[in-house]
């Protein structure tokens, strides 16, 4: 359980004192009048679901994002952080959730990269000894500082990222989901490093979904929900259930909803056998039936999205036996997979989904132009009527038909995107990655309804999600994944939130932190 608090910790003046921080992204309020303080020598956990506001706070503290309002005091001095360099000068080092390593550079170069105190003149390999020491401390004995980061495995990269933060000798070390892609031994190394840091009187902000880690490592925890700060408590006062209660607001009872379509069809429509997606996923098996909604629940790096991308034909070297309605699908080409009846909706809505500058109408019909074309000409009437049909299905105002998608809210953008992917008559298998990422609560409900309707029409739906709520709310069958492998497959009505959370965050090692459900 939580460490005993160091004497004087509660009374020492806070190193970081943030008051009334508010941040909006368009219509979404990511942080709403949040206050937060960090004391010297503590490991402070930030807890909450995806979208609760933790990452936004972290970005503000590290100068990547500027708040709309609020004050930030560091070491008693009010500061405005415009750039990551300024945050660094104030002693903040960040390990971002998204890796900020440059694959084309070597390990050593990456560790030195962006360090404002690194000298102008450098010798190649000049800091090799120091680098070596940090790497060794993180259990990376086998990694040479001259290795290119592009040649490292994902877990190793994560540790390099941590090594960089450690090398900066910062007053505050922010670790945003540092362990999502790590193995147990690797996690142990991270823990040791964190303990060393705080032993020197420095502080660590630790963002994690993994409650066991929080209980084991952290002194205090601040819990966030829907962009608001709920509470800050000493971890020693809390147990796992208490944390979950604070995070969820209340503990939802399982089986609020029956697995609607669990028994909808007798014939398996989609079988996946021995799917491998280099470099992470091995031996993935799954059978999905029409009408069924299957969740692939797992953290970033679990392999869930890789499975979807492979099934969509977007991974050239993915292999495995996939058949839809008895017809075999050869992976590796989006065209072939679409022709076989798969539809994929990427989680990266802006980068890989929508055509932002174009109208709602064109976005809605973008993938079905072949069917709407005669003699090479797009039949405008038909296209318009299909678009009208779809815009009605997703419940948007028809007046917005000609609006560029870029000017819509995130929720509406996602509806347009999914509207395009759902309702494909030919489709048999819907692959949805993070279907409600960046969508507010209202939009989320509507999108979930859309997915259910699609399933009711007989499509098999597989979605990948990192969000517990979404998994529990939407799925008939839950497949939890960790580190590229399936942990467990169980029907929704038998699943509890604690169990799923446990599987997603601990993989097979749930006993490690002693918090088996």
């Amino acid at each position, binding site marked *: 359980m939580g460490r005993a608090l160091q004497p004087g910790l509660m009374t020492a003046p806070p190193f970081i004192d943030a008051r009334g921080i508010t941040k909006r992204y368009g219509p979404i309020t990511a942080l709403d009048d949040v206050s937060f303080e960090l004391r010297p020598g503590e490991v402070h956990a930030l807890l909450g679901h995806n979208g609760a506001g933790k990452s936004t706070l972290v970005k503000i503290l590290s100068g990547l994002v500027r708040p709309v309002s609020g004050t930030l005091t560091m070491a008693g001095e009010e500061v405005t952080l415009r750039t990551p360099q300024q945050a660094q000068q104030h002693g903040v080092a960040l390990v971002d959730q*998204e890796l*900020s390593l440059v*694959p084309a550079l070597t390990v050593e170069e990456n560790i030195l990269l962006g360090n404002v105190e690194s000298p102008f003149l450098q010798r190649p390999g000049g800091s090799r000894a120091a680098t070596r020491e940090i790497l060794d401390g993180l259990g990376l004995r086998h*990694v040479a500082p001259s*290795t290119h980061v592009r040649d*490292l495995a994902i877990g190793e990269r994560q540790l390099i990222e941590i090594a960089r933060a450690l090398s900066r000798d910062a007053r505050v070390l922010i670790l945003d989901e540092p362990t999502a892609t790590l193995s147990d031994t690797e996690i142990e190394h991270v823990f040791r490093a964190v303990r060393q840091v705080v032993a020197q009187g420095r502080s660590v902000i630790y963002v994690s979904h993994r409650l066991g880690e929080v209980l084991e490592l952290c002194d205090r925890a601040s819990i966030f929900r829907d962009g608001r700060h709920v509470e800050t408590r000493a971890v020693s006062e809390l147990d796992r259930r208490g944390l979950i209660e604070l995070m969820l607001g209340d503990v939802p009872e399982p089986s609020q909803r029956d697995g609607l379509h669990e028994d909808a069809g007798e014939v398996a429509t989609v079988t996946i056998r*021995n799917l491998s997606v280099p470099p992470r996923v091995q031996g993935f098996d799954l059978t999905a039936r029409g009408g069924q909604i299957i969740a692939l629940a797992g953290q970033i790096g679990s392999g869930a999205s890789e499975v979807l991308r492979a099934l969509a034909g977007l991974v050239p070297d993915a292999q495995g*036996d996939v058949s839809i309605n008895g017809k*075999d699908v050869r992976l590796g080409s989006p065209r072939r997979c679409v022709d076989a009846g798969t539809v994929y909706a990427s989680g990266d809505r802006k980068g890989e989904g929508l055509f932002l500058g174009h109208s709602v109408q064109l976005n809605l019909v973008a993938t079905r132009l072949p069917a709407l074309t005669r003699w090479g000409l797009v039949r405008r009437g038909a296209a318009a009527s299909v678009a009208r049909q779809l815009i009605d299905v997703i419940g948007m105002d028809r007046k917005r038909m000609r609006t560029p998608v870029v000017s819509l809210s995130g929720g509406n953008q996602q509806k347009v995107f999914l509207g395009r992917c759902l309702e494909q008559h030919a489709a048999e298998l819907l692959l949805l990655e993070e279907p409600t990422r960046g969508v507010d609560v209202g939009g989320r409900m509507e999108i979930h309804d859309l997915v259910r309707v699609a399933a009711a029409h007989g499509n098999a739906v597989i979605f990948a999600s990192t969000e517990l709520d979404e998994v529990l709310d939407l799925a008939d069958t839950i497949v939890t994944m960790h580190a590229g492998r399936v942990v467990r497959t169980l029907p929704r009505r038998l699943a509890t939130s604690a169990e799923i959370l446990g599987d997603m965050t601990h993989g097979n090692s749930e006993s490690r932190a002693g918090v088996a459900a």
Partner: protein
Amino acid sequence: MSSVALKDPRRTRELARTSAPFLILALMLVAFYVLPQLSGREATVFNVFNSMQNFAALGLVALALGLTMIAGEFDLSVVGMYGLGSMLAVMTGKDSALLGLGIALLAGLFVGLVQGTIIAKLRINSMPVTLGGYLLLLGLTATIGHDDSQSYPNLSVGSSLDSVVAQIFSLRSLVAVGVFVVVTLAMRYTRLGRDIRAIGGDRRASRTAGVPVDRMLIGVFALSSVLSALAGALIAYSLATATPDPGLAPLIFAITAVLLGGVTLAGGQGAALAIAAGAITLSLLQELFSILGTPTYVSSLITGGLLVLVTIIAAPDLKQWWRTVRTRRGGPTASAASVGSSPAATVTGER
């Protein structure tokens, strides 16, 4: 994570990649020596000198372009600045060559800073910006030079720049070599090299890591323009002439040399020394053409083919394309082991 076991092939691949430009240069040297003899001619030390003269002019332009490519951008205006640099040096350096050189370099600095600021701060694609810049500089060069080639009366400047040093060098080519040495050292022994490669490799990651991305970008464009202006000024003094339009030949040379030097268009990779190797290779090739008296159309076929070939090899999706082709042609043979006796292996697919 068996990175220990995999280390060796990776190292080999890396070594092959970084040493390719030098291997090509070695091959070129062999060809340079052998090919003339096959047609009853010979390559002399003077030919090496002459190649280095060409390197002195266009190698610097290649370096200018190459640095922006390493940083993940593309400076089409190098050839415009090359022209303007030569015109300014000739027009303002009549009394003092150094003054003319200084003015050319300052103009380069200014142009680079302006273009760099627009590109970095407004985050506009460098291609259209530098294309506009190219046209503008070209117009400016012609306007300053009254649409005419301008002669530089002080021939002694050029002849001292071009006098032979150590058989194969001239003062001018030594300046170019010196610039390459300085840039190589700076890329290797200061944090600049790392930062330039970082912003070319992954700009978002670099920003997050704390690299002053905008400042670096502006600096790279400034350096690119200054180097182009330097190349222009030196060649102008050497020819004792500045022309109102340098044509596209310097740009084509620079692009080919940079690609031969192993710089990829995706950015993040490349070294000044390798660019030098690429530029020297190409200079030797041009000299080889001239030793053999190759007709223009043959040399343009060869250089065009070379450019397309290098681009194909450097294309980002080549591997992926090849894999796709292979799976389409050969079907699942490659995956037979994992497929086992499942029905997928026997079905030939949907066509």
